[in-house]
């Protein structure tokens, strides 16, 4: 029961936080600069790992598809299999998970520490709403960042698949045929659906990170708990939302 009320409270404060953040947009000074800073930081920290992971995910997808397809003689479909899986599903989900782990956790830790050490109180007495100074630029930054990261993840994943297709003996599909298969069967809508997912996931991850950080109470030990909670709740939300968005877009 306690858990339930706490969850509902958390959800409520997340909604309020988002509304307040966007309501403060017209009065936010230097918002472009701050958004750019957070976007740059987020991209800079997640891009390398996004690149590595998406390369291997694309490779594994191609390998698995190759193993299955060799019984059916449908190797020309490996391209579209990898292409669609990356674009519609694995690209956005993977980027969101990495965002939660790298950026979300850092944001929660920073805001939780500001709360615990009364920096948030100081902002309140200065009548500088934390929603405007701390939350809004991060939400905007993540909305800019997610499509970029997802497109990069897709491209690198496809590329990883192409390399496996060309160099694994029992598959032996040459890159031209592989990419033709993607080009022929992958619709622009597939990519757009993936980007919509990415935007929703990214926004939710950042909102959870900010809400959890700002709701921290007590001493420094709570900062660690807040970070764990932020990441766990983000991961669950990503996968649950993934189901519902996929269903809604189908």
């Amino acid at each position, binding site marked *: 029961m306690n858990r339930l009320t706490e969850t509902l409270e958390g959800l409520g404060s997340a909604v309020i936080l988002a509304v307040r953040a966007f309501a403060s947009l017209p009065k936010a*000074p230097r918002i472009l600069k701050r958004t750019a800073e957070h976007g740059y930081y987020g991209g800079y920290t997640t891009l390398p790992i996004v690149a590595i992971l998406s390369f291997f995910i694309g490779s594994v997808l191609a390998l698995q598809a190759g193993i299955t397809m060799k019984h059916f003689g449908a190797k020309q479909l490996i391209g579209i299999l990898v292409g669609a899986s990356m674009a519609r599903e694995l690209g956005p989900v993977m980027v969101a998970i990495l965002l939660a782990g790298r950026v979300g956790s850092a944001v929660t830790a920073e805001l939780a520490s500001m709360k615990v050490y009364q*920096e948030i109180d100081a902002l309140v*007495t200065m*009548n500088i709403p934390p929603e405007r100074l701390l939350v809004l630029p991060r939400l905007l930054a993540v909305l800019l960042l997610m499509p970029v990261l997802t497109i990069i993840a897709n491209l690198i994943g496809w590329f990883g698949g192409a390399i496996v297709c060309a160099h694994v003996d029992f598959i032996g599909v040459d890159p031209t045929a592989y990419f033709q298969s993607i080009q022929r069967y992958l619709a622009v809508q597939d990519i757009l659906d993936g980007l919509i997912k990415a935007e929703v996931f990214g926004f939710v991850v950042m909102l959870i990170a900010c809400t959890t950080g700002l709701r921290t109470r007590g001493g420094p030990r709570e900062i660690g708990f807040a970070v764990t909670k932020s990441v766990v709740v983000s991961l669950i939300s990503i996968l649950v939302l993934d189901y519902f968005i996929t269903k809604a877009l189908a």
Partner: protein
Amino acid sequence: MNASIKAPKPIVRVPRDDLSPVRVEVASLSKSFGPQTVLADISLSVAPGEIFTIMGPSGSGKSVLLRHIAGLETPTRGTVTINGQDPQLPATRDRFALALVFQAGALFNSLTVYENLALYPLERRIHSKADIHQRVMRALHILSIEGAAHKLPAELSGGMKKRVAIARALVMEPQLILFDEPTSELDPIMSATIAEIIATLKEQIAITTIVVSHDRDLALTISDRVAILHQGRLRAVEKPAALRQSPDPVIQDFLNPKIDIRHPRFKQLEASHE
């Protein structure tokens, strides 16, 4: 670099239309955290332009009282108002600039000292950039911390942090300024400087000031009135002269504690514990 900053100019100039200092009313304020009652039925009124000092033993609820006046806590019972308005409402804060110097400083740890001071005027778009720079440097100069302008709070000593916190409050050009133990970590000369700054603020712009302090000299020299808070209740609210003459043994003991090595207090406490 700072020759031009040395000032007979006022430390603080309020740029708002409404220049008048504010009145603080605390009416039957009580606060409990769970089962613990921290403040019990506090009523007091601080007049515009007054320097009001709150003294009292550690743990008596001084910081909690100050946080209520700053609108950071919700009273369990009773009300706090600033010129009749609730300090918890953003609209009130929009009308009156209110600065709180936190007991622990509460500096923004990821910003430099300079950025800590400049955040408020930049964010509220009060002055031009050059103007803000001048004000920030002047405040740093007055508190002798210009040298630390580009350091991070983590690189400062405790007393330096406290001075940065005070400088940050001065740059806000508030109509109501609340100090939580402004001199607790400072040497005697710096403490005297802080007392002078508080007195000067009152003289020049008649700002309303509430100081929480254990510093008897500061309290009795510059205050218009002093309140003694004891176990969450107001024990006395007096002018400094009257307080010195108070017959109340708690107040006398608090103002003039005698170190008695023959009958030490902790021995009495130990005995009463058994």
